[in-house]
């Protein structure tokens, strides 16, 4: 029985030693020898001092003093083995008594927990890194949140500003009821800027028995176009208010002079591309005579199912290398004439199956097809045609079409 017990003790995975109060090994099982990197049986008579540094030695002495007064203990001990490996042991030690109840030595059971400790260290380092990273991420998230809020604030500010600009721009464009009242005719305006605000504008003013109206397309679109459109509307008002007798070509050349003068103050000619293309008409309500002048933008009249194009002068309301006088066309209007002023946004729209320009030709054909409908219907049909041609494509430019039925 005794032998069997000793065999178990010898072969256990845990190291078991008995150490006297001089810290000499008086018993060591094979696992203990293995942990200390000592051949089996060779730990006997060696002292623990050979395997520990000063710091750990103090710990050992401190522990032994507890054994002497009968206290058990559990502690970590770092040893330098016979092969100079540093190992961490978890030691459970108990005092051993003789028959008369005196403490004679220490029995200690220990495990090599070096690997556990290393794992633990690694885990701890990993945890630390993770916590650091988490902290950084948290800070970044806070920063991103601040930036996002700033961006949202800027965007809101920008949108508020643009939307207010839109309110201003639209308030300078005559309303449909205003147009109908002024003309006493059926009118539609399809006005679709590429962005919230745009460089297209339409204009109508009544002077006694005459109506002056126009559709213009300013250079640029968005904010830049809208700024020039403000100038266009202001200058047209100035010109028309200050001149008692006028004709369409005269209005355009006065407008060109003002635009050129305004921009010339601050740059050379060619840098001043700023300006507009425009189609402008004056109708005498007494005589039904219409006068038309265009700067690049023509006028279409449909009469008896035939479309006539009144060509514009090939000059913009802006600086141009070869300046021409604007021509004016005089046209007698008849009942059921339908006429259209427009910017090039409709005909230039990319789309269709092969992503082509809508084209002037198609635009004329479409107007011919719909010109007999009432004006509200025509507007709807044009809008539908535009949207279906555009499909998934971006809108190329600001787009305006004004139609009038002379009934």
């Amino acid at each position, binding site marked *: 029985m005794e032998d069997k017990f000793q065999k178990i003790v010898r072969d256990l995975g845990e190291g078991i030693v008995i150490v006297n109060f001089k810290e000499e090994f008086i018993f060591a099982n094979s696992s203990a020898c293995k942990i200390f990197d000592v051949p089996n049986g060779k730990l006997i008579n060696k002292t623990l001092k050979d395997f520990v540094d000063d710091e750990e030695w103090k710990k050992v002495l401190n522990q032994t003093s507890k054994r002497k007064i009968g206290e058990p203990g559990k502690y970590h001990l770092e040893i330098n083995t016979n092969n100079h490996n540093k190992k961490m042991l978890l030691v459970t030690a108990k005092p051993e008594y003789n028959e008369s109840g005196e403490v004679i030595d220490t029995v200690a059971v220990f495990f090599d927990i070096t690997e556990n400790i290393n794992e633990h260290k690694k885990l701890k380092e990993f945890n630390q890194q993770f916590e650091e990273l988490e902290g950084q991420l948290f800070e970044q998230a806070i920063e991103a949140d601040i930036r996002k809020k700033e961006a949202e604030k800027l965007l809101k500010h920008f949108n508020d500003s643009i939307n207010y600009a839109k309110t201003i721009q639209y308030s300078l464009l005559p309303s449909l009821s205003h147009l109908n009242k002024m003309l006493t005719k059926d009118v539609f305006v399809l006005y679709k800027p590429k962005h919230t605000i745009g460089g297209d504008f339409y204009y109508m003013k009544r002077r006694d028995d005459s109506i002056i109206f126009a559709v213009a*397309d300013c*250079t*640029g679109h*968005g904010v830049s176009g809208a700024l020039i459109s403000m100038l266009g509307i202001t200058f047209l008002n100035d010109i028309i208010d200050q001149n008692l007798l006028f004709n369409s070509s005269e209005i355009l050349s006065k407008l060109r002079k003002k635009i050129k003068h305004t921009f010339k103050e601050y740059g050379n000619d*060619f840098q001043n*591309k700023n300006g507009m*293309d425009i189609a402008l008409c004056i109708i005498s309500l007494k005589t039904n005579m219409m006068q038309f002048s265009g700067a690049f933008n023509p006028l279409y009249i449909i009469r008896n199912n035939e479309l006539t194009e009144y060509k514009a002068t*090939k000059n*913009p309301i*802006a600086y*141009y*290398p*070869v300046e021409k006088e604007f021509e004016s066309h005089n046209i007698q209007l008849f009942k059921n004439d339908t006429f259209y002023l427009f910017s*090039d946004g409709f*005909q*230039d729209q*990319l789309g269709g199956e092969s992503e*082509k*320009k809508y*084209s*002037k*030709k198609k635009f004329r054909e479409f107007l011919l097809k719909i010109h007999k409908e009432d004006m509200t219907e025509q507007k709807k049909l044009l809008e539908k045609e535009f949207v279906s041609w555009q499909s998934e*494509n*971006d809108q*190329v*430019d600001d787009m305006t079409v004004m139609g009038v039925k002379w009934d």
Partner: protein
Amino acid sequence: MKQNKTKNKPFINLSLNLCKIEIKGPSYSEDIDDIYAEIIKWMQDNIPKMKCELICEFHFNILNSISHKNLLQIFSLLSEFSEKGKKMKIVWYADKNDEDILELADDISELFNLQFKVVEK
């Protein structure tokens, strides 16, 4: 200077060695004015250095008004160089039945003393 075509910017190929200026495609991006400013600067710097006959090829479809005005500046510059004796060949391509682009060729030939060929494709 070389730039690939995008949905709103033309293909641009400017070569000093080949004495070539090619601008082809749509021209209506938001930054198109800056692109033409670069082209015009390149022309001013490089055309005087060219040793061979200058070949210009243009093929537009959509030109916004800013591009239109820049194009006039390009032709104005070409006619200046032509008057100074620079030999050049200009080809103006247009899509078949593209009225605007064909009309623009007429306008340009009216405005500047330059010989150029119009080819409908």
